[in-house]
């Protein structure tokens, strides 16, 4: 079994061949299944204890669905999610709820994810109530402590969410996630809805909490600069599959998959002088629909290196191409891989393979 793990010793969450297919139905009474959205289509990776695994990709690539499927908020169609070795996908009812104490989620939209009719004290205290943790007085003390931890005045616990700004609401959402003292937190685009000057505050808070409580994060985001800042390892997704996974410095330093190379090159740098020297690679076309993903390698329709008869036919496997560096591409052989650069009209072209060229 190939698993994209750094070392096998300290895996907290293991995802094995995870698939989430949403059925598309037709008809009013007898709903026939006429197709499926292949949102997550065969994911395998490990999250190590205490690390931050960044999960990046463009919209519709299935990264949020992955986060939800791991926490069983969406039931996977097939595949296993092992939390400390136990499969979550088979659990139901109380047993699942008991496990949920150990894994929580921070949501993207701080306006939609807090109940506007509950005080923030009740919002943060609710997980404690659900899991029957502590007496009323103990819970109240815990809520005050949590508010202080995330940098909000504990005397405001009787106020309602609308009295707080976006950044403060996100802090409240973080406090709620921390209430049951989880080990593992899925952060689903936790800063995308926030203003630029507030984002840095929340990123710093998340890192500080991780150090303080020894948390493990799955950090889902589309902003590659932020993911580089916060993650220990990074997985890149494209149309429901992981195409590359490596240590942060390796992935950003020497990306091997053509998609990762193009994606990183497309990120604008807030520095006009660096921008002048740089020639970003332009990929043609759009991300295909996950309803009808392309055959073979999902990226072959936009890949400048794609080979007919191979990439459009065979699914590439996620292989360990170098120790700790996983990639799913037919054209990576040994440590040789296609180099993507900007050609005519800045369109992506292949500059040749590294280390003595491709094997025929």
């Amino acid at each position, binding site marked *: 079994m190939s698993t994209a793990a750094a070392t096998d010793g300290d895996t907290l969450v293991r995802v094995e061949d995870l698939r989430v297919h949403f059925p598309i139905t037709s008809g009013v009474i007898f709903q026939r299944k006429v197709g499926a959205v292949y949102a997550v289509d065969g994911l395998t990776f490990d999250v190590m204890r205490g690390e931050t695994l960044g999960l990046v990709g463009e919209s519709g690539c299935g990264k949020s669905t992955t986060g939800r499927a791991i926490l069983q908020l969406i039931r996977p169609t097939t595949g296993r999610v092992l939390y400390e070795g136990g499969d979550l996908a088979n659990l139901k009812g109380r047993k699942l709820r008991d496990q949920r104490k150990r894994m929580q989620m921070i949501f993207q939209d701080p306006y939609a994810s807090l109940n506007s009719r509950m005080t923030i004290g009740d919002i943060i205290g609710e997980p404690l109530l659900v899991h029957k943790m502590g007496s009323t007085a103990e819970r109240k003390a815990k809520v005050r402590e949590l508010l202080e931890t995330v940098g909000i005045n504990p005397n405001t616990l009787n106020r309602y969410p609308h009295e707080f700004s976006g*950044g403060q609401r996100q802090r409240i959402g973080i406090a709620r996630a921390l209430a049951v003292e989880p080990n593992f937190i899925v952060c689903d685009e936790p800063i995308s809805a926030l203003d*630029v*000057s507030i984002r840095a*505050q929340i990123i710093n808070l998340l*890192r500080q909490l991780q150090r303080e409580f020894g948390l493990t994060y799955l950090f889902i985001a589309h902003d590659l600069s932020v993911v580089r800042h916060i993650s220990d390892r990074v997985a890149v997704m494209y149309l429901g599959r992981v195409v590359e996974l490596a240590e942060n410095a390796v992935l950003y330093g020497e990306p091997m998959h053509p998609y990762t190379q193009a994606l990183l090159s497309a990120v604008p740098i*807030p520095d006009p002088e660096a921008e002048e020297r740089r020639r970003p690679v332009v990929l043609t076309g759009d991300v295909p629909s996950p309803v009808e993903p392309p055959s073979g390698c999902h990226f072959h329709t936009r890949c400048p290196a794609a080979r007919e008869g191979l990439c459009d036919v065979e699914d590439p496997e996620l292989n360990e191409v170098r120790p700790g560096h996983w990639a799913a591409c037919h054209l990576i052989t040994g440590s040789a891989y296609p180099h993507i650069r900007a050609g005519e009209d800045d369109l992506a072209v292949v500059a040749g393979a590294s280390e003595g060229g491709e094997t025929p």
Partner: protein
Amino acid sequence: MGAVGDTLLRLTDLSVDFASQEGTVHAVNHISFDVAPGELVGLVGESGCGKSVTASAIIGLTGMVPNATISGSIEFQGQDLLTMPEDKVRAIRGRDIAMIFQDPVTSLNPVLSIERLMTEGLELHLGMSHSDAVKRSIELLGEVGIPKAANRIKDYPHQFSGGMRQRVMIAIAISCNPKMLLADEPTTALDVTIQAQILRLLKKLSREHEAAVIVITHDLGVVAGMCRRILVMYAGRIVESGPAKDLFRTPHHPYTVGLLKSVPRLNEPRRDTLQTISGLPPDLAHLPPGCSFAPRCYLATDECWAAAPQLEPTDAGRLSACFHSDQLRRAAGAEVTA
């Protein structure tokens, strides 16, 4: 500031206020700037800083909001758009000044075909016949990179992806050869690989059509590669402006310093913690009497709380509204010589 010295657009002392239950919201406060023909200008700031309100004032959409009060002047080719009769403004809007909106999903009318959306402006402003307008529309769609444009012109917006819809919107905006394009967060709703395509397209079209572009965004990365001049807005005021390279290298306003330092960059080593700007942007209905940034500023002194600093020249082509911009300049100078 164009080398030729001619001005396409001149905003003088523009203010936009909105009456609300909580008092008057000062969305734009006495801002002035010029745009030369063909110039690429970036208007940067966070949500609520007044950048989008400025754009809608230029294109004459703010006047349609019943509780808005506009003062100052917006001169386009020497004529004040604010005092001009509505029918004259209507002839300019959409023809000489066009706008690209942030969200391509909501800003294209879903019940109109691409053909209707495209030809409306061409027929109205340029007096083209419908068949000529259709022909021209197909050319334009091709120019913005829509494959098989002739086959797709009868389609409706929902049949296009987000990136393609943004291309359609750009095609509509450039259809009447505008002299000025206002691009309000043109790539915020798009993915990175699509963003790169759209920014490249905007740059190319601006060059080919000799159109000035004001790019309004919160993303410093978007303007860094595209605009030669940057205006930074905070709480309805322009706090700093200048050539992009100089401004990014040595900002002369503490807010710009904070903005630049709070975003991680791919071309820099990773830092352990990001530098933050403490606190929150001010309530535009209750602006502090002095500098609006003073409550969050690491350089603030008593002077800053007492009076608002004016936008003053600090260097060649550069302006900053800060009593302590000299300090920032000296610090930058020391860094260079060190």
